């Protein structure tokens, strides 16, 4: 019996893995993801090269001397009236900034005349500069002594470092260091979306292929040598192994790319600080100037144990969730003759998947809320919801109980699905109602 399932798994696996579409999507998806992450940064760094000339006509005399030019914007104060400046050739300046004489009392007295469409970053930059100049001017009116020194002294930037309150490991600083919650949120989003896509795409693939085999009448030939249960399980496991192989290829690509690319992209001082932090140093002590959030995020992303835990649980939940849903998709596929008829049966199956994605958003806000807990235990929602919780370091027993429930439910579901499948694959014609499906399950 084992070997027959093996033969079927082999066929399902080979047929899919050898397809051009599989090879293309497997190799292109990570490239696409990397491109999506890298492209904005590249575009920013190239487009930032051009400096924009801004002519400033300041009737108040307060703003213009304090505007600071930078790589992006170059301010040039002109002492001629606005009307004259506006008559200058269009390519002389990128834009003309006009500050009214009543700027201190009238926040709308600043105007920007652009010769070509201006970007949002230009406007934000100018806006924030004017704001701080006016704020400083207003502060000055209170006649406080040593104001610039006071302002410089009170400027503060808080970097909240989170630690896990774990009394067992007070000696070990490394163990206390909780994961960066920014990274956890990103990972939670990515993982649960990935799982969602996998359940929907690969689940539908199982259903589609059952319908196709039923229409081809291949199933009739098969059932004379294999039990329907073996056929169904073989198909589900075959497709599951395709999904696992695809995920593994992606993980390998991501890790290899991350291992070689990330260090070369980072500035040297950050890399050095990172190495010290990995050895247990406090973030604040190694690099007081560096962005502590960034350091913490990098620390989490380079924590091999953390990543291994996430990858291992990802595979377990993905396979378990897929098996559970694929069994239901296979039963639905066996009951109908074509994809149109399948839609009605498909809806109740995809509903919990979509629901889990909606719940996932609230789970990310509060990974320990009761709804997060119970939905990560309920087998139909647990794969996606639990995947959104795991990056936040939840207790191991919750993961284990959730996995046990998931796989136990799969065992029961596959048994019931096989009963429908066994009858369904030989039935042609009328689409069965849910009542009939229930009766099929009780046939001898």
């Amino acid at each position: 019996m084992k070997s027959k399932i093996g033969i079927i798994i082999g066929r399902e696996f080979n047929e899919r893995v050898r397809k051009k579409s599989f090879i293309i999507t497997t190799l292109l998806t990570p490239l696409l993801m990397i491109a999506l992450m890298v492209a904005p940064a590249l575009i920013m760094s190239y487009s930032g090269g051009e400096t924009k000339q801004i002519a400033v006509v300041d009737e108040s005399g307060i703003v213009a001397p304090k505007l600071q030019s930078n790589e992006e914007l170059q301010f040039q104060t002109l002492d001629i009236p606005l009307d004259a400046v506006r008559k200058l050739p269009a390519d002389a300046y990128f834009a003309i900034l006009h500050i009214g004489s009543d700027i201190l009392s009238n926040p709308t007295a600043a105007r920007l005349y652009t010769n070509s469409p201006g970007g949002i970053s230009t406007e934000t930059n100018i806006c924030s500069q004017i704001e701080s100049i006016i704020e400083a001017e207003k502060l000055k009116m209170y006649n406080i002594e040593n104001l610039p020194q006071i302002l410089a002294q009170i400027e503060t930037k808080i970097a909240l470092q989170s630690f896990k309150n774990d009394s067992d490991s007070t000696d070990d600083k490394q163990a206390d260091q909780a994961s960066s919650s920014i990274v956890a949120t990103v990972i939670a989003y990515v993982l649960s979306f990935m799982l969602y896509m996998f359940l929907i795409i690969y689940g539908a693939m199982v259903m589609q292929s059952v319908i196709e085999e039923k229409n081809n009448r291949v199933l009739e030939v098969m059932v004379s040598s294999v039990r329907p249960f073996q056929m169904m399980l073989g198909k589900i496991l075959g497709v599951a192994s395709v999904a696992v192989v695809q995920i593994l290829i992606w993980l390998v690509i991501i890790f290899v790319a991350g291992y070689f690319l990330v260090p070369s992209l980072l500035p040297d001082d950050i890399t050095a600080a990172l190495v010290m932090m990995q050895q247990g140093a406090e973030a604040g002590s190694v690099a007081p100037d560096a962005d502590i959030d960034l350091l913490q995020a990098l620390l989490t992303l380079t924590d091999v144990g953390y990543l291994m835990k996430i990858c291992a649980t990802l595979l377990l939940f993905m396979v378990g969730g897929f098996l559970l849903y694929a069994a239901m998709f296979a039963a639905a596929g066996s009951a109908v003759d074509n994809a149109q008829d399948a839609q009605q049966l498909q809806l109740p199956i995809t509903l919990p998947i979509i629901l889990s994605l909606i719940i996932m958003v609230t789970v990310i806000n509060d990974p320990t809320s009761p709804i997060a807990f119970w939905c990560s235990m309920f087998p139909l929602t647990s794969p996606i919801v639990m995947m959104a919780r795991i990056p936040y370091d939840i207790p191991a027993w919750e993961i284990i109980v959730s996995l046990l429930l998931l796989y136990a439910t799969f065992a029961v579901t596959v048994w019931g699905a096989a009963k429908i499948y066994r009858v369904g694959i030989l039935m042609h014609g009328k689409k069965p109602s849910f009542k009939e499906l229930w009766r099929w399950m009780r046939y001898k």
Partner: protein
Amino acid sequence: MDILQIENVSKSFANHKALDDVSLTIPQGSIYGFLGPNGAGKTTLLRIINRITAPDSGRVLFDGHPITADDIYSIGYMPEERGLYKKMKVGEQAIFFARLKGLTHSEATKRLKEWFDKFQISDWWNRSVDELSKGMAQKVQFITTILHSPKLLIFDEPFSGFDPINANLLKSEILELRDKGATIIFSTHNMSSVEEICDHITLINKSRNILSGNVKEIRHRHGANTFELDYRGDEATLLGAIGNRCEIMESNPSLTGYSSIKIHIADDAQLRSVISAANESVNLRSFRELIPSMNDIFIRAVNGTL
């Protein structure tokens, strides 16, 4: 020795009874036909023999023991609707089905090469199934059905969709398999093929076995003692000689000299006296019993007028 015994098998689906207390036995080495109108329950019976579905009551004995899961290695089944994976290569697909029937990869490849040579289709090996015509696909399907040399072969409507040349090829292959010791069951509507190759038949109508037995025996049993005589000579002389010994059904005198006459005889004793009287009066060329075709028997049985 009977290879298959079906004892009081019944099977119901949601709103109809597909098989109602059907019993029959299939002798080893025979070619056995399942006849019956559409929807009579033939396919359900074939599926029960193949263990695709289980009967509600009754049992199936294979080689004298209740049929088990391992017995399917000794059975080859070709369903009415041929099914092959369209995108798969022919050779690979045939190996796949052979392995499901318990052959190893190398053994399956070896046997398949032989059969592909025999059917002269070796160059199809690496083509995908959707490039093949329906008839070509059926040849492949036939090979995958018989490849594991099963003791019992089951064909559901084997001749449908074959052109006459390939149907003949199939027929001779079936006879050859029988000569090598296999038992063959097939279900069909094609009555001429039943007369040609079946030893035994069972006629199923409305879920019940209404007629079972040896083809020759059945046809003679339902022959109704009708005979046809071909002769040369005078019609009136003949009628005078045999007219009081039998019932004349139809007389076709001919001016060219070869005439024929159809008669009905009450019993075997009369038969001899009719023959000798006819022999005395005219030049008898032939004398034969008019046995009904399976087609007639089928229609009469289904209409309840047998």
